[in-house]
Every structure is written in C-alpha cells, then in structure tokens.
C-alpha cells in the first residue's frame, strides 16, 4: 500500500457499464430529437400550437415544482403532501370565488375578485403548509429519513380526504371568470387564458426568485439549506426560516391551484396526486433544490407532455402519465442531479 499523493486527481476508470449507460442515453436523446423533428416537418403549425399549450401547463407545473424544490432544498424531504396542497388550493378557490362570491363569468369586477381570491388562496396554502410543518414534520426533523417520508404520504392522504369531503368524489366543473376567447398569431391560436397565466405566473416566479436570492430572509433560507448548525451559530432562527420556506411553498401551490381551477375549469379531489408527481418530476429534472431548475423542469415536462398528447405522430394521450414517469426513472438512472443541479451524492 503506497500512500496516495494528495491533490493529484486519480484518473477515472472508464468501465464498460459506464459506456453502455452513456451510449443508451445518447440513443434515447437521438430518438426524442428525431421524433420531434419528424413532427415539426410534418405539420409546423400544429407543432407551434402544441408548444403554446405545453408552455401553458409547464408554467403551472413550475409553480408547484417550486414548492417541492424549496422544501427539499431546506430539509431534504420529499413533501408528498404538496400536490394535495395544490389540490386544496384549487378547491378553496372554487369554494370562495365561484361558489361564495359567485364570480362565474368574465367581467371587470370579477377580475378584481380573481386577484383578491388569488391572494386569499395563497394565504390559505401558506397557512395549511405551515400548520403541517408545525404539527408533523418539525418533530421528525432529526428522525431517520423513512419517518418524515411516511408522514408526508400520510398527510397527503389526510389532505385528499379533506378535498373529498369538501367537493365530493366526482370532478366538479368550475365556471371560470377568464374569457374563453382567443386570438391568432401566425396561424397559432392563443387563448386569453394562456396570456393571463403568463401574466400571473411569470411575475410570481420573479417575486419568488427575488425573495430567495435578494432578501435577508432568502439568504437565511439558503444558509439553512446548506448547514443548519452553522446558520444557527450565525444567529439565524432556523425554525422560523423553515416555517417561512413552507409558507412560500404553500403560497406557490395555492396560486397554482387557483390558476388550474380557472384555466382547466375542473376540480377533483384526486387532482393532487398526479399533478404532484408531475411537478416533482419537474423539480428533479431541473435539479432538486434549484429554483431556476424547477421552472425549467416544469416547462420541459409541460412541453413533453403536450407533445406526447397533441402531436399527430406520437404515443397519444393514454400514455401521458407513463411518459412522465419514464422520464423520472430515466433521469434517476442517468442524471440523478438533474439538469442544473450538481450530481447528488449520498452523504455519509
């Protein structure tokens, strides 16, 4: 045993399995590019149309994915309940805006009500998320990892039950306040709903990015995510910071909920499970813990799903979920760190 000189990087061994993994990755990407190219040349206009639809969904996914990524970044917990929080946000907005305030058609006052209820829903989401953290996750922060994860799954069931009791087991139609009119841009039909989604989600994303990157609270969040003990020594109130993170994540989920209810026009109690998984895949795709990664991942997943569902040459809508989960599994095999994240390594 000779001593290994420190500082000298040892050459990485290139194993056959590594080559195989790399080759199969390139093959999969090539197939995907070929598929998209085939569709683009086949019908460019439809391709553009599907792209717009994909962006529309992708932004909503991004909003939900942000919540996952923020929470994972700070306490390394996959918050399974987050998707159901989004569902509760949608249900809450339906109950308040559509039922209680009776805003069921496009008009100026209803737009104002929409903005008001958007704020309320965000508050509601923040409140629910913070209570969950306070009641359940906080006690388990130092427990083995299995414990908070199972707790999160349980919480997800509890939230689903609340949704079930609130609106019943069947999907409910929402009379949306957003106009269903649309305009045409270079042959592509763009609905006003899409425009409004862009107009609301993009500023929200910018505000979130600002909070995390520029404010004192945001700096505390990033510090806590890196090292809880060190940040405690630096005078950061770790508990308060984590509560704040959950509040932001919940608010984003609430906003996504109301936007979903208003644009798709349906709310169901089991909405959260599927969308939560899609959003989590987005977060992982972008690199979990990375804010911009979540947005990028959300948009990419939205696009892929939309291409899969809408393009003439493709597997079609019934494989939509399978597609998303396949991406998730492939990611885990090839790039567990995500697109923008560092390669995740098991901490010992």
């Amino acid at each position: 045993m000779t001593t290994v000189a420190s500082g000298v990087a040892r050459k990485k061994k290139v194993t056959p399995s590594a080559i195989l993994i790399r080759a199969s990755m390139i093959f999969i990407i090539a197939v995907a590019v070929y598929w998209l190219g085939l569709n683009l040349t086949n019908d460019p206009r439809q391709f553009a149309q599907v792209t717009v639809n994909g962006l529309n969904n992708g932004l909503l996914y991004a909003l939900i994915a942000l919540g996952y990524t923020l929470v994972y970044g700070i306490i390394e917990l996959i918050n399974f309940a987050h998707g159901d929080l989004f569902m509760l946000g949608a249900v809450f907005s339906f109950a308040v805006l559509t039922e209680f305030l009776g805003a069921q058609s496009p008009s100026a006052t209803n737009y104002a009500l929409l903005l008001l209820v958007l704020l309320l829903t965000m508050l509601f989401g923040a409140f629910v998320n913070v209570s969950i953290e306070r009641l359940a996750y906080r006690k388990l922060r130092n427990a083995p990892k299995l414990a908070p994860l199972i707790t999160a799954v349980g919480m997800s069931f509890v939230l689903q039950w609340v949704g079930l009791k609130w609106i019943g087991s069947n999907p409910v139609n929402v009379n949306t306040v957003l106009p269903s009119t649309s305009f045409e841009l270079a042959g592509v039909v763009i609905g006003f709903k899409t425009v409004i989604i862009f107009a609301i989600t993009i500023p929200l994303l910018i505000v979130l990015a600002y909070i995390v990157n520029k404010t004192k609270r945001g700096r505390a969040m990033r510090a806590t995510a890196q090292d809880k003990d060190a940040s405690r020594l630096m005078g950061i109130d770790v508990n308060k910071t984590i509560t704040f993170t959950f509040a932001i994540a919940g608010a984003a989920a609430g906003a996504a909920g109301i936007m979903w209810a208003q644009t798709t026009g349906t709310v169901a109690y089991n909405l959260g499970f599927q969308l939560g998984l899609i959003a989590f895949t987005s977060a992982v795709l972008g690199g979990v813990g990375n804010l911009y990664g979540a947005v990028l991942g959300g948009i990419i997943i939205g696009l892929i799903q939309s291409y899969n569902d809408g393009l003439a040459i493709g597997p079609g809508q019934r494989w939509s979920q399978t597609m998303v989960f396949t991406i998730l599994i492939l990611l885990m095999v090839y790039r567990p760190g995500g697109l923008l994240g560092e390669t995740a390594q098991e901490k010992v």
Partner: protein
Amino acid sequence: MSNTAPAHTAASSNKKWALGFTGVVAFFFIMNKFILPEAPRGIQTFFNNWFSLTSMAEIMIWILMALGLNIIVGYAGLLDLGYVAFWALGGYVAGWLMSPFFSGISLNFFGNPREGFEFGIHFHVFLVLILGGVFTAIWGIIIGGPTLRLKSDYLALVTLGFGEIIPQFMINGADIGGVNVTNGSQGIGGLDDVNLFGYVIGTFAIPEKFLMVSLMAGAMIFFSIRLRDGRLGRAWLAIREDELAASMMGVPLWRTKFASYAIGAVGGGIGGVGFAILVGGVYADRFNFVISIIILAMVVLGGMGNVWGVVVGAVVLAWINSVGLIQVGNLVNNTFGTDINFPSYQFLLFGLLLVLMMLFRREGFIPEARIRMVMDEEKTEEEKVSDETKIASK
C-alpha cells in the same frame, strides 16, 4: 457468534405462533365448511357479516403482500412506494398462463382448462406460482437496478413511478403494436379452476380457496422468519441500520439489496397469483397507489421488520378495510340513529394512522427490539432540551 440463547427462545415462540396460525385457519375452515351450514341463522349471519370467508381469504393475500413489502422496507430499510406493481405482475402471470386469453396459442401443461375453452395457455397451478414468483423477482431486480445507488428518498420515488407505470401499462395494454397483451381495463377473466392432483377446487369453493391462500400465507410467514435469522437476513438488518458500517464489515451492498428487492417482490407475485385465482380473474383498475400505501401502512402499523407484527397489522387493516369499517359503521348508525358514511373516512383513517404512528410510535405496535433501538436513537431538539431540563430539575 455465541448468542444462541435468544435465537432459541425466538424459535420456540415462533413455533407457538405457527400453532396459533394453523389453529385460526383450521377454525375458520371447519367453521365455514362444516358447522355454519348446520348452525342457526343468527350465528350464520353474524359470521357472514363480520368474518365472511371471502374477506378472510383476502386478508391472507394482504398478509402475503405485507410480508413481501416487509422484506424490502422492514428488513433492508429501502422504502418502496410502488409495491402494487408486483401484485399486478403476479396477477397477470396467472391471467396469461391459466386462461383461454391467448386464443391464438394452444398450450396445455398439466393445466385444467374449462370445457370448450381448451385454447390459450393452461399451466399447472404450481408451475404458475413458481413462474409468477420468478417473473416478479426479475421485475424486482429491474425496478431495483437503476435505483439502488440512489438516496433513499429518490428510491421511494422511482419505485412509485414503476408502481404507476406498470398498472397503466396493464390498462393501456389492449393494443401494444397491434397485439392485445393485457385486454385493457376489462382485464382477463375466466381463470382455470385449480386442480390439485385430481382434486378440483371449483370457482365458488371458497373454503378450499381460503385454505389454499392460507397455506401460501403460512409459507410466507415461515420463509420470512427463516430468512431473517439466516445470513442474508442478518445482512439486510445490518444494511438497514448502517449501510456504511455494514459494507465495512464485508456485506456486499449491491447483491444484498438486489436480493431484498427480488425476494420481496416474490411475495407480491405469489400473492398476485393467489388473488387472481381467488377472484377468478385479474382486473387492471384495482391496482392503484392507494393499495401500495395500505400495504405500507400494514407494515408500519405492526412494526417494521417484525414478522408477527406485520401479520397482525395486515390482518387488522385488511379487516377494517373490507368489513370492519362498514360493519362498525352500520352498528354505530343503528345504535345511535346517526347517518355517517364510515367507508368514506378510509383516507383519513389511513393517512392519520401513518402520521400518528410516525409521530408517536415509530417502531409499530409490536416492535422488533432492534428497530425500536434504531428509531429512538435520535431525539428531536425539543426532546433533548426537555430531557436536560428534567435532569437539571432533579
């Protein structure tokens, strides 16, 4: 290794349990086969309402499932959130190999096809059980393969992904490149009757079917206990408690984890075959995420890693799920004149159960001594502080 004394006591207590299990199974079998048809009407309805044999047989399937998952979650400490995939795969193996479904092929290997349905594949039930186990074991390795180098929470997610993909494939599988693989959401019905050395168990012979799945569950209990005390089982426990330390002690991490996935999957596969035989077919709609979580709740409730704890957890939750919630609901509604829809509280019940167990009794109701030690190893800060203040006040 000279600690033979505790191993001995464990073995003798296991024998008692095995006797108890056999006794319970025999009681229900004899009760339903011979006594109930002669019994007065009141007793008959009581038994059929609270302990109907169909639900008892299903409970045995749940025990199989929970013990299979227990090998992955309880023994090896790998969280699997898509266990329902193995149930589905095992069920479809039975559907493919014991029914006239593949009408283009005609293959009879000691099978027992119904009259007029001789086409399709008909294998002997033992062979189907073995093939179902092998098939799911292979899938366990396929699912485990990409995930075992990941962190535990990512692993949970990938298994969940597979747990969604495989049932979805079954639902969409009526047309895979023009071939009908799974018959879509209609499922595969009309499975062959089981023929055991000339003794045919008919479609409606519930007591015999109950006996059959009980035997399977009993075998699973036996293997679970034996595996745990063996070399592989101890390697699993070592990995669960400290992966790094285990690998330093010479436990091959990859191989051991693969083994846990493969063997854990076998439980699901065999249970899937048994369930398919029990209901006489395999239907894709049944296999959803809720099932995975219910199985997980069984393992958590009873006590991860402890075979008898898991069995009790499976029995209690499966019973609550199939008859308990409805019957208790009826009882409460009738006595108090209320009108509460008890089955609709299923989600709340299972969700709260998971949360409360994790918060207040992480080791389960019948904990294994070792897991109690691990689960209580680290206290939260509040607890630490309160401990300190307690000591200070003394």
